[in-house]
C-alpha cells in the first residue's frame, strides 16, 4: 500500500471469473511485479459467475500499461476496464466512529447534514456515521470530524463505473 513517488493514482476495473483463488492471482501479480495497490474492492456482479474488482494503483504511463496488459494476461480475467480512456464516476463508503458529547453533538449532526451522510449507530459517547462519496468528499469529512475526535474509520475502497454514452 506504499505510495509511489513518480506517477499519479489510477483506477482500473477488472471483471474476473468468480472462483476461489482469483483474487490472490490479481493481488499476487501486483506484489510479484512490484506494482502498487492503493486500494482494492471486490464483489459479485449481476452474473454470479463473475466478480468485479476495482483497484486504485499508481505509476507512470509505462507502468500502468504493463499493469493493464499483465491483468489481461491472467487466464481468469475476463475484462480490464482502463479508466484512463473514459469518463467515469467513482464512489467510496466510509464508516466513521466519532466521539460525541454534549458540546459536539450538534456540530457533528450539522456536518453529517452538509455531507448528506447518515448516523447509523448512536451510543452515549459515540456516533457512527456512514458517508458515501468520491475521494475529495471522504477526505473533507474526515478532516472536519477529525477535529472533533475520530476513534475508528472503516472504508470500503473505491468502486468505479464508466459514464454511459450521452447520445
Amino acid at each position, binding site marked *: 500500500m506504499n505510495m509511489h513517488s513518480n506517477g499519479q493514482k489510477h483506477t482500473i476495473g477488472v471483471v474476473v471469473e468468480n472462483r476461489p*483463488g482469483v483474487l490472490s492471482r490479481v493481488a*499476487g501479480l501486483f506484489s510479484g511485479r512490484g506494482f502498487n495497490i492503493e486500494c482494492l474492492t471486490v464483489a459479485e456482479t449481476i452474473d454470479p459467475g463473475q466478480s468485479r474488482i476495482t483497484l486504485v494503483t499508481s505509476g507512470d504511463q509505462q507502468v500502468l500499461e504493463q499493469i493493464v*496488459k*499483465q491483468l489481461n494476461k491472467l487466464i481468469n*480475467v*475476463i*475484462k480490464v476496464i482502463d479508466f484512463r480512456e473514459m469518463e467515469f464516476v467513482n464512489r467510496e463508503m466510509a464508516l466513521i466512529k466519532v466521539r460525541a458529547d454534549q458540546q459536539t453533538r450538534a456540530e457533528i449532526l450539522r456536518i453529517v447534514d452538509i455531507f448528506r451522510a447518515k448516523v447509523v449507530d448512536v451510543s452515549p459517547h459515540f456516533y457512527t456515521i456512514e458517508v458515501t462519496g468520491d475521494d475529495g468528499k471522504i477526505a473533507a469529512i474526515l478532516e472536519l470530524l477529525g477535529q472533533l475526535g475520530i476513534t475508528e474509520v472503516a472504508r470500503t475502497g473505491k468502486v468505479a463505473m464508466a459514464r454511459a454514452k450521452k447520445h
Partner: protein
Amino acid sequence: MKLKGAQIFFECLQKEGVEVIFGFPGGAVIDIYHELPKYDIRHILVRHEQGAAHMADGYARATGKVGVCLVTSGPGATNTVTGIATAYMDSVPMVIFTGQVPTALIGNDAFQEVDIVGISRPCTKHNYLVKHVDDLATVIKEAFFLARTGRPGPVLVDLPKDVLGAQIEFRYPKKVELKGYRPTLDAHLGQIKRAHQAIKKSKRPVIYAGGGVIIAEAGEELARFAELIQAPVTTTLMGLGSFPAMLEDPTGRKELNPWWLGMLGMHGTFRANMAVSNADLLIAVGARFDDRVTGKVSGFAPKAKIIHVDVDPTSISKNVVVDIPIVGDCKNALQKLIQVCEKEPLEDIEQARSAWMEQIRQWRETYPLAYKQEGDIIKPQYVVEKLYELCNGNAIVTTEVGQNQMWAAQYFHFNKPRTLLTSGGLGTMGYGLPAAIGAQVAFPDRLVIDIAGDGSIQMNIQELITAVCNCLPVKVAILNNRYLGMVRQWQELFYDKNYCATCLDAAPDFVKLADAYGAVGLRATRAEEVEPVIREAFSIKKPVLMEFVVAQEEGVYPMVPAGKNISEMLLV
C-alpha cells in the same frame, strides 16, 4: 461406464496424445500409478522430481509437444518448482500433475501437504486445484490447451487423492471454453504496413530474433524475410538455431553464414553488439529485451527505430519503448511481412545494403570470437569446437548454466531450431542432464550432448541412473575447470579476485562416478586427448560422461559488464 479419477487421468492423457510422462510416485498419487500399467503410456522413473520437470521440459523443447510430469504431494511437488520456473521463463509447454492430500484434509497441515497451487502461482501460466472429479476432464483439457497455445508455458494441476479415487461417467469435453483467454495470433495488417514503410526507409537494419521464432516454427520464414530485406540476423541465446549459423556449399564445405551476426548481449559477438548499437532499424521477433541482451537499457540500439513482433503483449514496451508493436504469432507476422515485401520489393536493395554489410564484415574481422589452443592444457572452447566438428553439427545440445553454457552458445554452430536446449531465462544449473534425457526419450536415435560444467553437473547427477536404466545414450561433456567458473570470472573482474566459495577442488572422480552408475566414463587431460575421447564417446551406445580437465581460469569473452552499454565490451 463409470471410471475412477485415476483412470480418467489416463483417458485424458491419451486423448491429448501423450506418449510419455516423467514421474516419481508417492502416497498421494499411488492411485494413478496403480492404473499406469493398463495404459499405453511410457513412464520414465526419475530419481528426483526436479529431474522429472527438466526432462519434461527437454522433451517439450526438442519436439514442440507438451511435456508431462507427475509427482506426489508435498516435497514431490515443491521439488518440481525450479523446473516449473525454468519452463515458465523460457515459455515451454508443460503440464505438471501433482498429488494432493484428500480434499477433507486440505488446509490441515496434513502429512506431505503443501499449497502447491499457491507456491507455483507466479511461475506457471495457470494452475488448478481439482476439487471434484466432475471437473477433472475439463481441467486436464484446459491445462493442455493453455500450455501449448498463445505464449506457451507450464500449467500445474493439483490432484487430491480422493478425487483420483472417486468415480464418474467419463466424458471428454469437445472444446475448451475460457472466457478470459484469447491470445492474439493474427498480426494486424496496418502495423505490418507501418513496419514495411520503416524497412523501406532503413539503411542499417538488424533482425533480432528470439525463442519465439523457434516456438512458432518460423525459422524458414525468418530466413526468407532476412533475405528479402537483406538484413543481418542476430539472435538471443533462446533464438540460437532459428537462423543457420553455417552455410554449406554444394561440395559440402561449410562456412559462416555472412548474414549471421552471432548471439548478442552480455556474451554476444562483437559484430552483433556493434551492429545493434549502430542500426537505424531493429526488428525484434519473438524476443523480449531481457537485461542480459540489452545491457544498459538507455544505451540499447540508441539510433534505431524498433519494430517488435511478439505473441505476448506484455513483452512489448516492457523494458524498451517500441515504435511499431506487432502483437501476433511470429510465423503469422513474418508471413505477412514477407507478403508485403514481395509485393513491393525494395529497390536496389543489394546496393543499398552494401556499405552496412561491409561495416559488419569489418567488425567480424576485427574481433572474431577467438581463443588460443596452445600446449597441453585444454581450452574449453576447443572442446566445444571439437564436439561440433566431430558430429558435423548433427546433435541436440543441452547445457548447464554458466561458462559452459556461453561457450556452447558461442562455439557450437546451431543451424536448426530445437537443437539447443538451455535454461535462458531462469539460468538453472542442473538443467542440462535431465533435459538431455528428455530429448533423448523423444529422439532415441539422435546424438544428444549435454555440455556441462563440473559445478552444474553435480546438481542433478542422480539422473545418470535414469539414463542408464532406460538405455538413453546421452553424452555429457564436463568442462572441468575446478571452479564455479562464471562466478569466478565476475570475482576476477569486479571483486578483486576474491574467489570466495567458487573453488571446487574437492570433486568426485567423474570417471569412477560414471562407472558406479553403470555409464561409461572417459577423461581427457591433454589437448591431444580431446578428439579421441569425443570419438570414442560418440561411438558408444550407452550414456557417457566425458571429463575434460580444462584451463582453470579461462574467461568468457566478449563480456559486457553489468549496467554498461552493449557496445562497451571487454574483449579478452
